[in-house]
């Protein structure tokens, strides 16, 4: 999948990656899957199981897109508050999605695990963003070598990035 999409426009890469994970992964909560309340799995772990929860989807998609050469500035992992069970439902759930910003100031396209379509953020009224992050500052400019020393891996996000790298996925 990654090899095929190497030379495609970025918009297509987004769709292909989203499709790929939507088809190949089934949703399963961390407690069911990893016997931990909240476990961040690397893409290989996720694909290996064929199962994952929202952040596993988001991480896998993020790393795949980075591997396809999408700029880090255009990608954000976004913590969102998701309204589940229709527009009038009061049930909300902590959720994570991947946002793709075509330009820095534009509305992002949202790659979600709850639905298979890639929609602009404006269309996703069920989601309200809370906080976004990417790997900026974690890596030195244009290099994939970590500037952080080993203790910095205590952060889960950093751990996942480094572990992914150790597993052989490079971007």
């Amino acid at each position, binding site marked *: 999948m990654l090899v095929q999409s190497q030379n495609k426009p970025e918009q297509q890469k987004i769709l292909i990656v989203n499709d790929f994970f939507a088809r190949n992964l089934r949703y399963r909560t961390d407690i069911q899957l990893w016997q931990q309340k909240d476990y961040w799995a690397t893409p290989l772990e996720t694909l290996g199981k064929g199962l994952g929860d929202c952040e596993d989807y988001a991480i896998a998609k993020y790393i795949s897109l980075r591997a396809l050469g999408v700029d880090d500035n255009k990608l954000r992992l976004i913590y969102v508050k998701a309204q589940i069970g229709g527009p009038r439902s009061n049930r909300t759930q902590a959720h994570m999605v991947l946002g793709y910003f075509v330009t820095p100031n534009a509305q992002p396209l949202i790659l979600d695990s709850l639905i298979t379509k890639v929609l602009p953020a404006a269309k996703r009224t069920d989601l309200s*963003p809370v906080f*976004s992050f990417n790997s900026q*500052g974690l890596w030195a400019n244009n290099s994939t070598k970590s500037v952080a*020393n080993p203790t910095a891996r205590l952060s889960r996000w950093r751990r996942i990035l480094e572990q992914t790298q150790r597993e052989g996925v490079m971007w």
Partner: protein
Amino acid sequence: MAFFSLFKRNRKSSITLRQELWLAILVVILVGFISSLLISTYSAKNYFSSQLYLKNVDNANNLALMISQLEKDPVSLELLISATFDTGHYQRIELQDPTGEVIAKRVFSGDFDTSTPDWFHHLYHLDVAPGVSQVNDGWSQFGTVFLESHSQYTEQALWQSAVRLFFSFLLVAIVACIASSYFLSRILRPLDDVVYQASELGNKRFIKSKVPHTYEFARLVSSMNQLSSRFSQIIKEDKKRLEEFRFKSQHDELTGLANREYFSATLEAQLKQSEDHAHGALFLFRVMNLDQISERLGRVEMVDFLRRFTKTLILFLEENEDRFSENHIARMSHTDFTVLLTDIDDLKLLSERILQLHKTLVSEYQGVDLAVPHSCTFIESKDTRFTLLKRVDNLLKVASSEQTTQAELTDNKNKSELFDNPDSWREAIEQALDNDDLDIMLYPVTSFNGKLLHNQLTLSLLLNGELYRHGYYYHWAKRLKLLSRLDWGIIKYLVRVFDEREDLKLISVELSEETLLDDSALAAILTYLLAFPDLAKHICFDIKESIAVAELKIFRDFCGQVNSMGAKVALKRVGSAFTKLDKLQELGLEMIKVDSIYGHNISYSQDNQTFLRGVCSMAHSIGIKVIAEGVNNPDDLTMLQSLGFDGVVSQPTDETVEQDN
């Protein structure tokens, strides 16, 4: 303590083992000190850096999260960032919009702490990456937060910890130094013994030392001890062999007395030494009809008689030993015996006494026509061995003409002496000493290749207005017990003129028996020399072999004392007793001067050649030089050189002192 003697340079300005070990220890301690200091401070620096970075990241994330939740009007943003910056410890907080434009920025400027030195700041600058975090406004990106903590706090802490580490490591290093100095001194203590032994070996003293515990030292010391004992063994064997040989070559087998050859040499030497002022006398005894004993009573009886006769002579000499200073007995032929006495006054009395003894002895052999006539005469100033023996022989012919035990003597006492009574002699010698009316004569001791080994000194005295050589007044001084005063006089004279005279740089001075046996006289000379180390280093004391053998313990102590102050010891008139010197190798002798008895006419004496060759090789094996006394004949000199002698004592170069006659 070893630590303080560390920089004490030794004499040859080469580095000692102790210094080398110290150098090694110091290098190890220094390397340990510096590396532990560097490692500690660098690991502290790394730890601080990583902690600071984590703080940057965490605080950036918190701030970004907070801003994401807030309304994003410029005033609120300014306030939030200002509040965070002002209440925290930050170098920089910056908020940029997605295009990189600055929305709000706070930067710390100025120094608040100057206690950290610049070099340290330069060396340990903390290069901590800023914490970066994203801010979103709804779905859209709002900006990026850059946050840097102030690193000067950390640098200060790092500096303080470095200073603390420095002092604690310094303390550890000092403790290590003290501990090493203790262990080093313990380890090296046996080394001092080893070095002492080695240098004593170098000084020809083959001593043994205690075997230390350290394995290498123990091996070294035991090999050196082995070397010492092997040398002792070799020397002991050599001496034994030499002694046997010498005795055989010089003595009559039957009676154990000196033989004719040996006695002739002795007499010759005696005549030479007395330098025209002989004070001796010669006895010649003849046993008449000796063969009748073996014919009538048997050979065993004859041998028995000869032994009794010899014993009688020896006992006679022992009983009268206060009437002369030296005696030499010899069996000249089958029936003839001689006795040479030196410094004798009353010849007639001695002659009568021995005659009486012989009459008694002869009376026990009634069946045989035994008779022991004898003759005796004083040695005259112009006597040679030949004239003396001829005179005494002629006298004996008269005495033996009647075949009875009787004596014939010439009371030819030397009348040409300066004074004729002891008191005048005493007065004159003491006066010369008191008034410093003295001079020295130099007998150069040179090696065969012409190198001056030293000058042998004798003291000349101004007696009655004229300067007299040592040989002239010597026997009087000896009789009057003035020898130690003369020794003291020469030392005092030397100290006085030592600096002025170039020819006194290498000298030897004879110390008399009187001085050596007199504790206070010897101590006076040695203490005096201690005050003049320059002289002490150049002086060599000559001691007569006979004294050294008779007073071995005193001589041994003397050698130790003299060697310790840098002076040397030589044996003089070396001959028969040389092999009796026990532990010769421990004495540290510089040279031996072989008596002229041996050197004289050496070309003709095969036995003496063998003996002297043995003496030379033994002496050389322990580094002692061998010098011949009183040999002038070129043939003899060539022979001595081929036997292994190192040199000879020559006649005085200083001929300004003329002999009075």
